[in-house]
């Protein structure tokens, strides 16, 4: 493949890399060129950014519900911990 043209797999990888850290100049140009030709990857990039926002906003809720996990620890557990301190 020509050095300026990316596969879709590589392009989507670069999209994730861009969100995660940053791209080199060459990668930026490669990605831009690929996106200008590939509608699916352009969509992917837009949706990936969108998902990022949803995930960031909601990640705390994805943990098990607070009520379920806020049961008290047993006295037996406390005793075990105190014994383990020695």
């Amino acid at each position: 493949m020509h050095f300026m043209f990316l596969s879709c797999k590589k392009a989507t990888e670069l999209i994730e890399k861009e969100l995660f850290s940053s791209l080199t100049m060459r990668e930026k140009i490669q990605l831009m060129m690929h996106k200008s030709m590939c509608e699916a990857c352009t969509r992917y990039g837009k949706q990936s950014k969108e998902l990022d926002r949803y995930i960031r906003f909601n990640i705390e809720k994805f943990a098990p519900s607070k009520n379920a996990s806020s049961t008290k620890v047993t006295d037996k557990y406390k005793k075990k911990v105190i014994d383990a301190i020695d």
Partner: protein
Amino acid sequence: MAYKPEKQNQSLCPPDRIILSFILMVHLHLRKYLYFSIATNQTFNLKRLSASKDKLTTWVHEYSDDLVNWASYKTKDRALAEDLVQETFISAHKNINRFEEKSSPKTWLFSILRNKIADTYRNKIQQYTSRESDFNTDDNSNLLERFFNQHNEWNSASKPNEWNSDEEELLDNEDFNLVLKACFENLNEKSFLSIQYKYLKGKNGKEICQELDITPSNFWQLLHRAKLQVRECVEGNWFIH
């Protein structure tokens, strides 16, 4: 005549003997103070240890509920959380000297626990990424084959479709969040971890990689795989219903 030099050597107190006996005398006089100070030091240490044990015992009663709840919220694993909290108290006991009275014990314990949790994540992610051969083959390449053909272009079935979403509305949409949550739970553990780590910590890529001691390329490849799956799942279950 032959005795003469020997007689000179037999002098009663050659200078080195005087010095030796002097040292011995000083030692005999002073050793009681020496041993005395060692002994008091020991009792002092013992006293301090039992004081820290008392303190720790109070802390276990006061804070273990909060610590365990917070840890199980972060790790999603109650048993693991209880273990981590136990380790937290043990290392608090060992490092009690480093605890400064001016900060609250709760803050201090939480900071130890936070490090323990980060360690667990770090170990798990390192396990996955250190086995480079596993990382690039097996289910990972199968997974990518589901999305891309042999020319690394989108399979027609997995091409992204237009979403036409209203971002602001979806952020607070309970039903959509349920779908998103379910899609997260569908991920296998390693992808889930990578994404969870990324978003829970709120740190940038460089910091995470330094903290986890993995190469950035490994990490964003994990994210890539996770993202492909979540995107497909959300699209299939929400947008194209």
